[in-house]
């Protein structure tokens, strides 16, 4: 198992290195010098000596490898530059907003698991029953419901018609736990809907496949009741593909967060990214790219480790 994790970790590091190099290259080939664009208002860019001075100040007159080394060193030391939009340190902006987005992600993932997995199991066990049809239909709706539409309907129903939740806004948990929870219910629900439907479908089909396997028949031939057969022999192998789906969903939550944080006026990484894109805030966008990749890599690593834990055959293959 140790060797297996080591190999997975090495893979993740290689990919991270490639991402970092790509982010650096993208920043260099974006049309128009980012720094020049930022300086445009404050200095006279028609004066070659001024341009030269600014380029020198930002190290742009050095060779590309040197620039990369300097940039990487600064990034690793936590100097992620200054936001063009807000004038804040980019790292500080991330540190402030990360917990907000993380709260949404964790909430969305938890509820999608809490609903999706039992629903999928129910559908598989009561195949073709009314319950199964309800599960499959619910899952299709969950997967295909446009989030903006769902958000608007939910805001209308539960913030306007029945004012249980605030229509938008955010209160940090440690400031006021109750208000915080009320504020995140609707956005978390919308964010996790897709993943919940996806999970229900995958759990159902995965479990159905496992229930047709020879080793399940062996378990029945031992004399186990149907419930014991499922609990002791079907659930664990049935969860193998499901772990991957949870990981993929987590990676996909960010796309949802872009939109949902804007709609619900939540000051998280998603809204920060949208702002950065509209303002051509390159330092923030650059850092965002790396953080997004890191997020996906970490989740994949976690999925791989869980995989190895569930399926002993994976450990040897490495």
């Amino acid at each position: 198992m140790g060797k297996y994790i080591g190999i997975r970790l090495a893979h993740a590091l290689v990919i991270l290195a490639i991402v970092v190099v790509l982010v650096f290259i993208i920043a260099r080939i974006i049309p128009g010098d980012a720094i020049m664009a930022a300086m445009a208002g404050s200095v006279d860019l028609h004066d070659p000596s001024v341009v030269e001075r600014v380029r020198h100040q930002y190290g742009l007159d050095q060779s590309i490898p040197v620039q990369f080394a300097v940039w990487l060193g600064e990034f690793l030391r936590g100097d992620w530059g200054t936001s063009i939009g807000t004038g804040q340190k980019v790292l500080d902006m991330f540190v402030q907003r990360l917990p907000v987005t993380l709260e949404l992600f964790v909430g969305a993932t938890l509820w999608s698991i809490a609903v999706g997995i039992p629903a999928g199991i129910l559908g598989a066990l009561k195949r073709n029953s009314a319950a199964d049809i309800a599960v499959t239909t619910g899952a299709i709706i969950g997967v295909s419901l446009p989030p903006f539409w769902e958000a608007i309907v939910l805001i209308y129903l539960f913030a306007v018609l029945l004012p249980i939740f605030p229509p938008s806004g955010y209160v940090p948990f440690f400031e006021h736990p109750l208000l915080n929870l009320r504020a995140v219910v609707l956005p978390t629900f919308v964010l996790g809907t897709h993943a919940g439907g996806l999970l229900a479908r995958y759990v159902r089909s995965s479990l159905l496949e496992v229930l047709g396997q020879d080793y399940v028949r062996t378990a029945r031939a031992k004399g186990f009741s149907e419930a014991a057969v499922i609990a002791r022999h079907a659930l664990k192998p049935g969860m193998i593909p499901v772990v991957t789906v949870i990981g993929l969903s987590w990676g996909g939550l960010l796309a949802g967060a872009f939109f949902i944080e804007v709609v619900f006026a939540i000051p998280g990484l998603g809204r920060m990214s949208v702002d950065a894109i509209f303002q051509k805030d390159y330092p923030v966008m650059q850092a965002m790219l790396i953080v997004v990749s890191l997020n996906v890599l970490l989740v994949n690593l976690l999925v791989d480790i869980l995989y190895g834990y569930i399926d002993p055959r994976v450990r040897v293959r490495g």
Partner: protein
Amino acid sequence: MAKTAPEALLSVRDLTVEFATDAGIITAVDAVSFDLQAGEILALVGESGCGKSATALALLRLIADPPGRIANGEIHFRDRELLSADDATVRDIRGNRIAMIFQEPMTSLNPVYTIGRQLGEPLQLHKNLRGDSLLAKCLALLESVNIPEPRRRLQSYPHQFSGGMRQRMMIAMSMSCDPDIVIADEPTTALDVTIQAQLLELLQAQVANHRAALLLITHNLGVVARYADRVNVMYAGRIVESASADEIYRTPRHPYTIGLLRSVPRLDQPISEKLLPIEGQPPNPLDLPSGCAFHPRCPLAIDKCRAEVPALTRHANGHAVACWVDVRD
């Protein structure tokens, strides 16, 4: 075969198993009747697709439903009739009084659990063994089927076992609750020929030790020569010949049995005659020939064979055959 032998441990009567497929209903097992005596080794032999596995699974009500269904019949085991018994009664017999060994050693064990856990389950379930006594019994079981380093092997996962070792483990598991009957569905078919005989010998020794009866299913009539007391030959869902192993080999009376004997090498005889495969293909189960299902492939077929299904008729020495022609003529 028609009358019930009262002393039989297991009596199967008119067992009929159907599968619903997109193309129609397949009668995989068609009114099969046979008896299994205590301690006896009974072979069930026939080409692939003739309904051997369906028969075996039906005995423990393990036919997957859907698509399968036990449409008719009675299965008497001791004082019970299994097809009308409640689920709890049947579960109490499975793995305990009647144990099963499956054909596919690669897929019949759960890949995500250790050998030890899976081996111990029948003992946990039926004998309430736990902890040290369970461990001790599992170690003894692996030792009894000659698996070296049993303590370490209990921690292994199925993929770390060879096919032969998995079947040994399956044999050990089937014996764990001292069953009355073991059903072995082609236990060696998936394995290398070199270890097939070894495994069958082990199986024979184990059922003898535990005084269990064995229903040995195989498509290879040559293989069972050494092991079986009696042989039932199956064709297209029916038993076409039933006799002691000696009789089957010395005086086979069904043209299909004769064909089978010529087509396989025999472990008990030097290869003196050339092997002759039976002409033609097994029939399509969705569209069985009229009359005797074997007639299109039968060198001795007469008009009556095309028209009427011959019943399994008992002759001297308990030798029963379903054929309109007397091959001795």
